[in-house]
């Protein structure tokens, strides 16, 4: 790994990549490149050691079995914990979001998570499937969240994690709040390629990782059209 380039790690695509999660890696790399930031991307499989020296870590969604296996291997490996302690930024999606908390349920059993976000997850009575929309925590300075959710979990935040958004359509964590953030870790139930509909979150991760106060604007005509269409489709 060279020292100048921005290093982005995709955690365990062999286990957690059910809904086009690769999209987030592609979008981050593209938006960095458009700002002239050199990027190196790494897909780290579950049988490989997790590097601790990257700048941004991405983790995606998946089924119960792979989710539990991924949590176990990440706890044993320790690389992600070291990376977070060194100030790395994280985007965690759906099953990946749950496993960043203290605990989650998979295949009927309570499983230990990484404990890097102050939250825990259990099972809801119904599956949350459909368009998701929310007003993002004003401290993050982002436009409304748009996403598609498909999960059976409900997530409960402790005092050291902040809701990413207040839900205006869909379920998210519990019908009231959606996702969580703390430090430079951001988790959401907006599954799969969440950054396609939320390029501002991609830029937030890039700012966290580079320390830049702002980034040069890019042409987001198509992303804005997509956002407008999906936010309207979700209703209010």
């Amino acid at each position, binding site marked *: 790994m060279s020292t100048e380039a921005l290093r982005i790690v995709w955690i365990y695509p*062999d286990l957690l*990549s*059910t*809904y*086009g*999660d*690769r*999209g987030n890696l*592609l*979008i981050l790399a*593209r938006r960095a490149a458009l700002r002239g930031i050199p990027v190196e991307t790494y897909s780290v499989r579950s*049988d490989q050691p997790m590097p601790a020296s990257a700048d941004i870590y991405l983790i995606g969604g998946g*089924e119960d079995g792979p989710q539990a296996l991924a949590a176990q291997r990440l706890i044993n490996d320790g690389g992600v914990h070291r990376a977070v302690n060194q100030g790395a930024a994280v985007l965690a999606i759906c099953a990946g979001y749950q496993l960043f908390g203290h605990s989650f349920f998979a295949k009927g059993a309570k499983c230990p998570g990484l404990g890097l976000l102050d939250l825990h997850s259990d099972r809801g009575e119904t599956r949350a*499937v*459909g368009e998701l929309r929310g007003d993002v925590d004003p401290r993050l300075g982002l436009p409304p969240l748009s996403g*598609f959710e*498909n999960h059976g979990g409900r997530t409960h935040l402790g005092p050291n994690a902040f809701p990413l958004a207040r839900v205006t359509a869909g379920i998210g964590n519990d019908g009231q709040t959606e996702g969580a953030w703390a430090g430079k870790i951001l988790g959401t139930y907006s*599954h*799969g*390629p969440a950054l*396609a*509909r939320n390029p501002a979150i991609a830029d937030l991760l890039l700012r966290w990782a580079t320390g830049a106060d702002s980034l040069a604007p890019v042409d987001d005509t*198509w*992303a804005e*059209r*997509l956002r407008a*269409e999906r936010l309207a489709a979700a209703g209010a």
Partner: protein
Amino acid sequence: MPLRAKVATSVSKTAAALSRAAGRGDGSVIGGWIGLKIDPELLSHLATGRAIALVSGTNGKTTTTRLAAAALGVLGPVATNSFGANMPTGHTSALAKAGQTPFAVLEVDEHYLPRVIDETKPRVVALLNLSRDQLDRAKEVAMMAQLWRTALAGHPDVNVVANADDPMVVWAAYGSQKVTWFSAGQRWQDDSWVCPESGDPIERENGDWWCTGCPLRRPIPQWRVEDEGVIDPRGDWHLVKLQLPGTVNLGNAATALAVAAEFGVRPIEALPRLSTVTSIAGRYAQVDRDGRNIRLLLAKNPASWLEAFDMAEQAPTLLSINARDPDGFDTSWLYDVDFAPLYGRPVLITGERAYDLAVRLEVNGIPFQHVRTFEEALATVPPGRLEVIANYTAFQDIRAELDRVN
């Protein structure tokens, strides 16, 4: 046939005719639905006395069913569900409508394969491939393979014809002792990197594959594609002339020949019939309009998008996607598809979810132009070939613009 079944068959035919007359669909489902209400065992009764082949898999089953039915036509009349109505209601309708035929080739939805095997007691079951398809509803790929494996283990008399290139299919087929292997390739590999037997990684090299932790590996296929033809179990090569595009359809032809061989049809007899198949419910159909030669390709999941790119010529290409119920409401699969093969072709996009496609293509670095209607697309491209690749309901929308071409 018991009297109850006879009554049910007769009502089933009438309902199908009524449904067609009322302009509601092609009648291939509603008739079977009513028939099964009157006699829940109607499908079993209708299947009795016929030699039946079932064709299942995530992709290619409609085309392979059509090709296999054409091949079996050598022996006599063949009943088949040619409208792609691939659940038991559709099978019931197809058999009732066909009357007494000695043979039937039925396309079967993956989820329904165990039940349809139970009810129709087929001579042959062809297993094509398993990959992700509308994940917000479908079962996991590994669960589907397990379902098949268990079903086949319960029917040791069935001859299985299975794709040696798909690890999930091979593992499922090993539920049976009587398997003929064909090689139809596996363009989409992202759902079979983990061994379904042992959970170990699967390695691939030059078309071969093997599990790194257990004996599961690619069986040697008796039927395979080579150049523009198919090699049979005796080692003889046969030129395959199809009117359907792409190496994917050569693989489907190899499968159809393997199925036909289980009924005693030799490739040399079947091949002329395969070459008569031009299009299937609009798929691969070519329509000339305003000096443009429009060809329709259906792509309903990541694997079939890759296949469509392979079939399409280097020509202006219109992509159209919707996300209605039959398509799945979630468009995140767009990021499972690499659109790079389109690079260098003029690309147009349309459909209800064109903006999802626009953002995806931008990330992929593929220039494109958005058009609001199919008419606008036609006006935008120069005379000559226009390839149209669309997902399920978008495909039906465009087919409707072209007077429901078959």
